[in-house]
Structure formats: C-alpha cells, structure tokens
C-alpha cells in the first residue's frame, strides 16, 4: 500500500466537488495504466497532476476529458456521471501541449469552429470570441493563421478555444512544455491570473515541479498509475508522505541517509542524531530501519550552526555556484550530501565545513515501505 492520502490538514474549505473520480481503472490490453484511482477536485480548484513521464498523468487527464474509454470506475463532472459521455458533452475545455490548432483556419475560425458546429446563434459566437480575445489579449491576431503566430501566441489561442466553450472545467495537458523558459514563466503567471479571474476548476498536467508548485492549490504526485501524495504545495514540500515524493520534489533533490532508529536516536555510520523535535506521524518514536531525508536548503550553515541540535564536520568536495546560491557536495556517513549555502558564502574545495541538522525540518522514512514515519 503505497498510495497514502493526506490527512485533512490545511486543505481549502470546498463547497462541492467539480470532478469526482471513483475507483478508476484503465488497461491497455494487459497493461494496467491506472489502478483503482480515486480523486476529487473541488469547484474552482487548481489541481496539478505531477509526475515523470509514463506515470499515467496524461492518461488520467484524457480519461477525464473522455478521449480514452475507461476500463472500470466512474467519472463525475459537476455531479453528473459522464463516464460514457462524449468529450464535447462533458462541459470541459482542453489545451494541448502541441497547441492542436486547426492550421488552415484563422484564429477567429479556430475559436468559433466548435461553436458554429454546435449551431449557436451568430451574435452569441461573436460575443464569446470577443470576450475570449479580450481576456487573452489576442484581438489583433484574430485574422491571422496559426502559422503566422509565435509559440506563446498559439498557446494563447489554444486557451481561447477552451475559453469560448464557456465551461466550468479546464484541462491542461503540459501546455507550456513546447515554449522556451522565459515565455514559459510569463505564460505560467498568465494562467494563474486567468484562474483567479475565471474562478473555474482547472486540472493541469505537467512534469515541471516549479510549474506545479507555483500554480497549484493542490498537487497530486503520480507514479505507476497511482497517486503517491495529494496535498497543497506546502504539504508536498514540507511533509512528503513517502520517499518517492520527497525525492521528486525539490531541486536539488533531498539528501537521503540510510540508517536505523533506536530509542529516539537515528544512527548511521558514526552519525547519531537525536530525534527530539521530529513529529512522527504516529505520534511517538518508532524503532527499526529508516532513511533520514533532509533538503539541501534545510541544512544549517554559517553562524547559526552553533544553535543547531546536531553538528557534523564535512570536507567540501565540489562547489557549484549558481549566483544566488552555492551548492556544496560532501560526504556524510558514506552518502553524497548536498548543501545549499548563500551565494556570498566563502568556501573552497578541501575546506572542512561545520553543518547543523535540525530533526524538526527533516523527514524520516521506513526503510522497507518508504512511507513517512
């Protein structure tokens, strides 16, 4: 049992659910892609499905959209069972990574084609196109064809095509992955603004953790067709429920040290860290094999070391300056250990550095099940 649902911690109070996924299974032949998946998305919530490629996040999104037929289970959107409904009848709009614009039509044609097909009155279509163009600031582009647009403009038109559908649920399938870094950051902010303005439900698939952290109300981290953890960005970052999530979130990733716990003390090699201050999930200390995880940015350096509960001396092996920070590689109890220091800190290779570890900011995982202790 790996999929651990988070305790109802600081979750935003939600009136009713916009999307409910119940016991969803999806098989491609004999391959089980999604297994017994349950997920509720609240009204107006921004949920990000995050995971490495092949974890089933896009598959799940396609199931919600109705582009893939599920093997078992149910999908409800706005309290209506849409498990077998056509994609166009589900009240969703979707934005794709490759934009998927209709290349032979103008931007206006792209926005209005679906509406014309649904036989909406002309005035209504014109209204909706104008409103979407207003919101996304693409009025000057309406007469152009997609080939004459930049990547960012194309993606904006793709969002516009979802917008004119006047639906409550937006699905995004890695919408920013084809854009360059600068544009990605800009459009990310725009999507967040759009969400605040429209207040509709958004489900967003990405493999980029920065995107996930910045956009999401809640993040669902997926692996092998299962949700490893579902929680707010803070929960995911601060209280990872298992080693996979802890390792996946954060860059550079968390340091792990294999050892064991005995009588409230974590030992590994010549390390013996008292776990006073660590909040065990079960409320009390557990004995047995364990992995200690601590993020590079949570290792205490500099003057504050003297106040930290536990100190070790390490030799600096490698320094990676990134401008704002310096990343230090060293060895702790036979494991590679990375520390993030201030960019102004004065260190050199070979120097002995004193580090402080605070158990309150660390994470402990069961050695066998990799679940948070």
């Amino acid at each position, binding site marked *: 049992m790996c999929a651990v649902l988070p305790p109802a911690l600081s979750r935003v109070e939600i009136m009713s659910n916009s999307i409910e996924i119940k016991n969803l299974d999806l098989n491609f032949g004999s391959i089980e892609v999604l297994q017994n998946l349950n997920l509720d998305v609240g009204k107006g919530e921004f949920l990000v499905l995050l995971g490495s490629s092949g974890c089933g996040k896009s598959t799940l999104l*396609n199931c919600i959209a109705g*582009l893939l037929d599920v093997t078992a289970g149910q999908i409800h959107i706005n309290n209506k069972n849409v498990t077998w409904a056509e994609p166009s009848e589900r009240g969703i709009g*979707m934005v*794709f990574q490759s934009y998927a614009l*209709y*290349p032979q039509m103008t931007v206006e044609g792209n926005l209005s084609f679906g509406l014309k097909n649904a036989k909406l009155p002309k005035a209504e279509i014109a209204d909706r196109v104008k409103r979407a163009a207003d919101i996304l600031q693409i009025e000057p582009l309406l007469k152009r064809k997609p080939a004459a647009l930049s990547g960012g403009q194309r993606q904006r038109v793709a969002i516009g*095509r979802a917008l004119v559908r006047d639906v409550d649920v937006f699905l995004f399938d890695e919408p920013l992955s084809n854009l360059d870094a600068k544009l990605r950051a800009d459009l990310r902010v725009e999507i967040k603004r759009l969400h605040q303005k429209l207040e509709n439900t958004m489900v967003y698939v990405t493999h980029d953790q920065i995107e996930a952290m910045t956009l999401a109300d809640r993040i669902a981290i997926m692996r092998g067709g299962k949700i490893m953890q579902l929680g707010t960005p803070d929960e995911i970052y601060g209280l990872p429920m298992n080693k996979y999530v802890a390792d996946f979130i954060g860059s550079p990733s968390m340091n792990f040290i294999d050892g064991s716990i005995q009588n409230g003390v974590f030992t590994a090699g010549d390390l013996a860290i008292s776990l006073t201050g660590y909040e065990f999930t079960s409320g009390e200390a557990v004995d047995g094999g364990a992995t200690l995880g601590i993020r590079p940015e949570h290792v205490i350096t500099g003057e504050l070391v003297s106040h930290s509960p536990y100190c070790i001396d390490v030799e600096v092996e490698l320094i990676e300056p990134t401008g704002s920070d310096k990343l230090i590689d060293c060895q702790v109890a036979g494991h590679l250990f990375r520390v993030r220091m201030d960019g102004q800190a004065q260190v050199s290779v070979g120097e002995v550095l004193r580090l402080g570890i605070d158990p309150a900011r660390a994470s402990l995982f069961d050695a066998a099940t990799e679940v948070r202790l």
Partner: protein
Amino acid sequence: MSSARPSRLFRNKSAKIAAIPMIVTALFVFVGGTVWTIVYSFTKSGLLPRLKWVGLDQYERLWSTRKWLVSIENLAIYGFCTLVLVFVIGFILAALIDQKIRFENTIRTVILYPYALSFVVTGLVWQWILNPEFGVQKIVRSWGWESFQFDPLYTADIAIYGVLIAGLWQGSGLVMVLMLAGLRGIDQDVWKAARIDGIPAWKTYLFIVIPMMRPVFITTLVLVVTGIVKIYDLIVAQTGGGPGIATEVPAKYVYDSMFRANNLGQGFAASTMMLLTVALIVIPWAILEFGGSRNRD
C-alpha cells in the same frame, strides 16, 4: 592570384561534373527531342523523317480523324473518373485503415499489391474477369441469375469503363498508402481537440484533416495525372483499343501512327497536341502554386 576569389563556374567542381550526364540527357533527350518532334510535326514524314514542309496539314488531318477524337474523349472520361474515384476510394480506404484496426499490415499489403503488378498483367487479368464467357457474368449466371449481363469490354459505349475498373483496381492502393502516410502525419492532438469541440469525424476530415494534407494531395495528384496521360499499356493488354476504336487513347494513337501506319508526321502532330494539353494545365497551375509564393516571401 591564389588569393583571388575562384570563379563561380569552378566552385563545387566535383558536384558539377557529376551532374553533367543528367544535364546532357535533359538537354538533348528531353528538350532536344521535344523540339525535334514539334519541328517534324509540320513535315510530311512517313516511314522516315523528312524535312518536307506541309504546314498545318498533319494537324488538320489529326483533328478530322475520328480515331483521334474518340481517343481524346476516352482520355477525358478515363482521366476524370480515375482522378475523382481513385482519390475518393484511396482516401476512404486510408481513413478506414487509420482506425487502429487489426491486421493493418496485411490489409495494407493486399490493397497495395495490385500496384506491384504491371499494367500488362492487370489488363489481362481484368480482360478475363470481364469476359462474359468465363468471367463475372458467367459466375453470376451459374448462380441462377440467368439474365445477368455484365460485359463492358464487349459493348462499345461503355468499354472504356471496363478499362477504368482495371485502372482503379491498380491505382487505388498507391493513393491509399500515400493518404495513409498523410493521415499518420496529422498530430493526434488535433483529433482530440476536434472531439472536445464536438466536431463529427466526417467534418473533421473534411474541414481540418484534408486541408492539412494538402502537400500529400499535390504529390498524389501529380503521380495520378501523369499515370493517366501516359495510359497505353493497360489498353493494349486489355482491349487492344477495341471493340472497334471504342477504347483508343492518345498515346496509342501516337504509337499506331508512327510505327504501324508509318506516318511519323501524324504521330508527331498527335504527341505535340498531348504536350500542349499538359502544358495548358501545368503552366497556369505552376504559376499559381510557385510564382505566387515567391512574391509572398
């Protein structure tokens, strides 16, 4: 001297030398041959080319020959029907195969297989199939439908449609394969987007997918049209131009005039007319297609 920029003529020397045989072939065989043919179409050449001018006599004779008029008419019927049907059939087959069906490779091979046969074999096979004595008509009659009649190759009015059937059977496979390649090149997300927009499949094909496949359509069009204009071997193998002159085509008229009737001048005049027809179609199209885009860029 050594620092001077080398003459443009001698840059990329090896590439230019390698291209010489092709340039010579193009100049002397294609351009030279064409000009020579046009020139001799104004002469009274019989068995051998002779420079004895007769002005437009060969053309006047050509356009008053019933066989030529029938040939032109046949080519028009055959060409128009092939063009329309081969695209419709080829595209529908490709669209059907594109539905993630089982045994796709087998079916694709079966449909493409006729294209691997020469026109001579195709012509013979369809001559037999359409033969009322032992072909389709015989089989249906033996099932008990005694009055069934299907003998296009023996009815002058519709004989060209018998040839058309064979041509379609042979040509559809290639069009299907090209169309299938085009369909596979369409981003799957476009299909998904259309489904979310609630656009029915046929409309997606008609208004989104087919316009996106324009380059494939143009390539296919060129291949199909050249195949139509030069149609000769299928006729010879299947009907020999008969019954009577019912299935004559221009290419066969040219061959017959030159090598059977020993009337080179008449054959040259006919082939010049064919060239003129093709040029009348191709040149305006080329100007539209390429000339326009040069101005735009």
